[in-house]
C-alpha cells in the first residue's frame, strides 16, 4: 500500500515553473489589495481610518522597491557571473519580465502611491471614505502590470479586464452624484463592448496564427508567409480597436469627456495616467513587439489614428468650458502624441512613448490634484469660471497648475517639452515628417486650451478680489498634507526632468521590450 502511494502519479497535470522573483511586484500589489480587503472586513471596527491610505502607500512603495532588483537584472546583459541576467519569461512563457514591463511596474507603483495620497483627503471630504477605493486601485494597477508583462494574448486580456473592471467601479464610486454613476455606467457599457471586440480580435489572431502566445505568434509571422492574411488583418484591426478605446484614440474617444467630467477627480487622475499607460504598454507589446514584421500593415492605420486624435483632441478642446472636460480632450491629444511614437515602430520610438507616459503621468496627476482641491466639495464646481482667480486666492495651487499646464503644452524647462520633442524626433527619424508637422501644429492649437485655463486662474475672477471673500476663499480649501506631497513630487518631477531629462531618457531607452521564452 505504502509503496503504491509513494510512487509518483504517471499522468499528472504538468505545472509550469514559476519564477517567483519575477512575479514579486505583482504579487505584492495584488496580494496587498486582497489582504487589505480581508483585514478591513474582519476587523472593520478596530481599524483606524488613517490605516488604509498609509497601508496603500506602503504597498505601492514596496511594489516599486521590489521592482528595482528586477530592473537591475533584466537590463543587464548575461555574464559568466550572472547567467540569469537579461529579460526572462515565466509561467510557461506567458508572463514576460523585461525592462519594458519593469518600467511600467515602477510607473504603476508611483501612480498608486500618488493617487492614494490624493484620494485620502478627497474621500473624507466627499464622505465616501472606506477601503474599497484603495483595494480597487491596487487591483487595477496590478491589472496594468499584467498587461505590460503579458506574453500571451489571453494573459493580456486578463490584465485588461482586471484593470478595467476595477476602474468602472471607481468611476461610479461617488454614489451620491448622479454624474459619477452616469460616468461609471457609460464607461462600463462602452468598455465592455471594447473588451468584447478585443477578445474577438484575439480569437481571429489565434485563428490566423494558431497560437495566443506572443512569442509563438511572432515566430509564426516571421517564418510563414500567409497567402491570405485577411483573418490576421481583421484580428489586428479588432485588437487595435480594443487598445484604441482604452487609450482614448479618435474615433474611440467619445466616452472620455463624459467619464472624465463625471468620475471622481482622483479617479480621473488614475485613469489618465495608469489606464492610458497600461493600454499603451499592451499596444506596444502586441503591435510593435509581436506584429513587428507586419508593421507596414498597421503603421498606416496608427498614422491615421494619430492624426485624427491629435486634431480632434486639440481642436474640440477649444470650445469647452469645463476644466475636467478640457483636460479630457487634452488627454486625447496626448494619446495622439503617444501614437506618433508608436507609429515610428522602432526601439527609439518605444523609448519615446515610455518617456512621454512617465512625464505625462506625473503632470496629469498633479493637474487633477489641483483640480480636486480647487473645485471644492461635491466635484461640481469644475467650470472655468469656478476656478477663476485661483492663482490669486491660492497662489501655491495656481503656480503648481501653471507648471502642469505649461508642461502639457510642451513649454521648455518642463518634462513635457522633452516628451513632445522626443516623440517628434522619433517621427522624424522614421521619416514621418508629415506626421511630425501635424503633431507640432496640433501642439499650437492645444496650447490655446492651456493658456485659456492659465488666463482664467491668473487674470479672471475680479469678483473675488474683495479682501474678506479672499480670506474666506483662502480658508476654504487648505492643502492637506497628502495632496501637498503629491504636488511637491509632481512639480519636482516635471521641472527636474525638464532641465535634465537624461536619466529618464536613459531609463526609457533601457526599457526596451523583449519577448523571452521561459
Amino acid at each position, binding site marked *: 500500500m505504502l509503496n503504491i502511494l509513494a510512487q509518483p502519479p504517471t499522468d499528472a497535470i504538468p505545472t509550469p515553473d514559476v519564477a517567483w522573483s519575477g512575479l514579486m511586484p505583482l504579487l505584492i500589489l495584488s496580494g496587498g489589495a486582497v489582504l487589505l480587503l480581508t483585514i478591513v472586513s474582519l476587523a472593520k471596527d478596530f481599524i483606524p481610518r488613517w490605516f488604509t491610505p498609509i497601508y496603500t502607500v506602503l504597498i505601492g512603495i514596496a511594489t516599486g522597491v521590489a521592482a528595482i532588483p528586477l530592473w537591475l537584472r533584466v537590463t543587464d546583459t548575461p555574464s559568466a557571473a550572472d547567467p540569469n541576467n537579461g529579460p526572462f519569461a515565466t509561467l510557461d512563457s506567458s508572463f514576460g519580465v523585461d525592462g519594458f514591463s519593469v518600467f511600467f511596474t515602477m510607473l504603476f507603483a508611483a501612480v498608486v502611491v500618488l493617487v492614494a495620497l490624493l484620494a485620502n483627503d478627497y474621500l473624507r471630504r466627499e464622505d465616501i471614505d472606506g477601503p474599497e477605493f484603495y483595494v480597487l486601485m491596487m487591483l487595477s494597477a496590478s491589472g496594468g502590470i499584467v498587461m505590460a508583462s503579458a506574453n500571451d494574448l489571453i494573459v493580456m486580456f486578463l490584465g485588461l479586464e482586471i484593470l478595467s473592471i476595477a476602474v468602472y467601479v471607481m468611476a461610479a464610486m461617488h454614489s451620491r452624484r448622479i454624474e459619477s454613476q452616469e460616468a461609471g455606467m457609460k464607461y462600463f457599457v462602452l468598455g465592455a463592448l471594447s473588451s468584447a471586440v478585443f477578445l474577438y480580435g484575439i480569437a481571429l489572431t489565434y485563428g490566423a496564427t494558431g497560437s495566443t502566445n506572443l512569442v509563438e505568434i511572432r515566430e509564426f509571422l516571421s517564418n510563414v508567409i500567409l497567402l491570405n492574411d485577411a483573418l490576421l488583418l481583421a484580428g489586428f484591426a479588432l485588437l487595435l480597436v480594443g487598445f484604441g478605446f482604452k487609450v482614448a484614440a479618435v474615433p474611440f474617444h467619445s466616452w472620455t469627456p463624459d467619464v472624465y467630467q463625471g468620475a471622481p477627480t482622483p479617479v480621473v487622475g488614475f485613469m489618465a495616467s495608469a489606464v492610458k499607460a497600461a493600454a499603451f504598454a499592451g499596444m506596444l507589446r502586441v503591435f510593435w513587439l509581436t506584429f513587428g514584421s507586419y508593421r507596414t500593415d498597421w503603421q498606416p492605420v496608427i498614422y491615421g489614428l494619430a492624426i485624427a486624435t491629435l486634431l480632434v483632441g486639440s481642436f474640440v478642446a477649444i470650445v469647452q468650458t469645463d476644466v475636467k472636460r478640457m483636460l479630457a480632450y487634452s488627454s486625447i491629444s496626448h494619446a495622439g502624441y503617444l501614437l506618433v511614437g508608436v507609429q515610428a515602430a522602432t526601439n527609439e520610438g518605444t523609448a519615446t512613448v515610455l518617456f512621454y507616459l512617465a512625464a505625462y503621468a506625473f503632470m496629469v496627476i498633479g493637474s487633477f490634484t489641483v483640480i480636486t482641491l480647487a473645485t471644492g466639495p461635491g466635484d461640481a464646481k469644475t467650470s472655468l469660471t469656478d476656478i477663476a482667480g485661483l492663482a490669486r486666492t491660492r497662489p501655491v495651487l495656481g503656480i503648481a497648475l501653471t507648471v502642469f499646464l505649461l508642461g502639457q503644452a510642451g513649454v*521648455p524647462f518642463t518634462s513635457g517639452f522633452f516628451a513632445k*520633442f522626443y516623440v*517628434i524626433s522619433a517621427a522624424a527619424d522614421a521619416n514621418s515628417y508629415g506626421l511630425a508637422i501635424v503633431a507640432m501644429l496640433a501642439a499650437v492649437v492645444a*496650447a*490655446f486650451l492651456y*493658456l485659456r485655463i492659465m488666463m482664467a486662474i491668473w487674470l479672471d475672477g475680479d469678483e473675488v478680489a474683495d479682501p474678506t471673500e479672499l480670506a474666506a476663499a483662502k480658508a476654504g480649501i487648505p492643502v492637506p498634507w497628502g495632496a501637498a506631497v503629491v504636488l511637491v513630487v509632481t512639480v519636482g518631477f516635471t521641472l527636474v526632468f525638464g532641465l*535634465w531629462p537624461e536619466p529618464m531618457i536613459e531609463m526609457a531607452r533601457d526599457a526596451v521590450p523583449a519577448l523571452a521564452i521561459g
Partner: protein
Amino acid sequence: MEFDNNWLLSVMTFVPLVGAAIVMAIPKAEEELIKWAALITSLVAAGLGVFLLTDFNYDNAGELQYVADAQWISVINSRYIIGVDGIALPMIALTLLVVPLCIIYTMGHFPEPRNPKALLSLILILETGMLGTFIAQDLILFFVFFEVVLLPMFFMIAVWGGDDRRYASLKFFLYTMFGSALMLVSFLAMYFLADGTIVGDEANTFSMIALSDGATVGIARTSQLWIFAGMFVGFGVKVPMFPFHTWLPDAHTQAPTVGSVILAAVLLKLGTYGFIRIAIPMLPEAAAAWAPFIGLLAVIGIIYGALGCLAQTDMKRLIAFSSVAHMGFVMLGISTLTDFGINAAVFGMVAHGLITGMLFFIAGSVKDRYHTLDMARLGGLLISAPRMGWILGFCAMASLGLPGLAGFWGEFPAILASYNPAAILPEATFRGYMVVAALGTVLAAGYLLWMLQKTAMGTPKDEFVDNPEITDVKTYEWIAWAPLLALILALGLYPKPLFSTTDDAVVKSLQVNVMDDVPDCLNLDTDQGEACFDDLREQFEAAG
C-alpha cells in the same frame, strides 16, 4: 587679465535668473528692496557685459570666443555649447543695456496693476531667455531659450497690458509658437539628415558650429529647401515678416511700455539673428533659392508697414507698424546674402533696437501724461513738454534714416547692398527691390514727420491745456533715455566700430567651408552656383 573665461557667458546669462528668484523670495511689502534687487541684478549682468566688451578679442571677431562645451542630453547628442562672436556680441550688449534701462523706467512709473515683484521677475527671466538665445551654439539649447522668452512676455502683456490685452497676448503666444513648431521639425530634420562626421562631430548633431561648418552639405537640395522653409516660418514670425506680422501691432499696442521696449529692442532681433546665425550659414544653398522670395516679402513689408503707419490714429500702433517697415530693411539686407548686406542688417538691428525702443519709451511717457495715444487729441508736445518734444523729434529723425544718426547706417547700406546682391541671386530682381525700398524711405519720412506734426507741433488741445499731469522729462526718464540717445548719436557719427566688429563673423557665416577647400558657391552665377553646390554634394558622397 588671464583666466578661464568659459563660465563668463553662463554667469552673465543666469545672473538675471538668480536675481528673479531673489526678487520672488522677497516679501511683497518690501517694494523698494524688490526694485533695488532687480536693478542691481541687471546691473551686475551689464557689468559682466562691459567686461565681455573689453575682454573680447576684436581681431578675431569671426571666431567664437568664450566657448564652453558641456554634456547636456548625451542620448541625443545635444550639448550645452555656448560662445560669442562678432554677430552675437552687439546683440548681447544691446540686451544688457536695454534691460536695466527698462527697470529704471519701471521703477519711476509702475504700470497698473502694479505688483512690482511679478513684473520685475518676469523682466529678469526674459533677460535670461534673450541672452541665452544669443549665446547658444546648440540648436536645442537655442530653441529652449527662444521659447523661454515667450512666457514672460505673454504674462507681461496679459497682466499689465491695455484693454485688449488678452487677445493680444494670446495672439502673440500662439503665433510665435506656431512658428517655432515648424522650426523644431526643421531642426530635427537637420539633425537626422546632416552628417557631422564631415567636420569631426558625431553623425547626428545639434551643434550649430558643426552644422554651419558644413555638416549639412550632403543634404539633398529638396530637403534643404523644406528645412529652410520651416525655419523661415519660425524666424519670420518672430521678425515679423510681412504675412506673419499681424501679431506685432496688437502686442505692441497692448503691452506695457517696458514690454513694448523690450519687444522692439530685442525680441524682434531673435528672428533676424536666427536667419543670420542658423538659417543662412547652415543651408546656404536653400538660402540662395529662397532669397529672392525673402527679398520680395521684405520690400512688401517695407511698403506695407509704411502704408499701415499712415493709416493709424494711435501713436503706439504707428510706431509698431514702423517696426514692420524697419525690419523689412533688415531682411532685405539679409536676403542679398552678401557680407555688405548682412553687416548692414546687423547694424540695422542694433539701430532699430535703440531708436524704436526709445520711441516706445516716449510713447509710454506720453500715455502716462495724457492717458491717451490718440493722435487726434494729442498735439503741442513742444509747448507742454518741450524737452520731450525735442527728444521725440530727434528719435523720429533717427528712425527715418537721417544721416548722422544710427538709423541711417541700417537702411542705406541695406538698400545699397540690394543693388549688388550675391552673384547667385538674380540681379535685376534685387535692383527692382532696391527701387521699391528706396521709395519706402520716402514713405518713412512721410509717416514719421506726420506723427511728429500731429503730436509735437501745434498747440495743445483745450482738454490738456494747463493740465498739471503734463510735465516735462522727469529724472528717471532722463536716466533711462540718456544712454540710448547718446548711442543713437554716437553710432550715427562713427559707425565703424560696430561694422568692424561684425564684419569678420559675417564673412565667415557666408562661407561654405567644407573639407578645407573653400568654394564660394554663392559668388557664382545662378547656374554655376547651383552646379557648384551639386558638385560639393557629389564630392562629399564620393568621399563617403
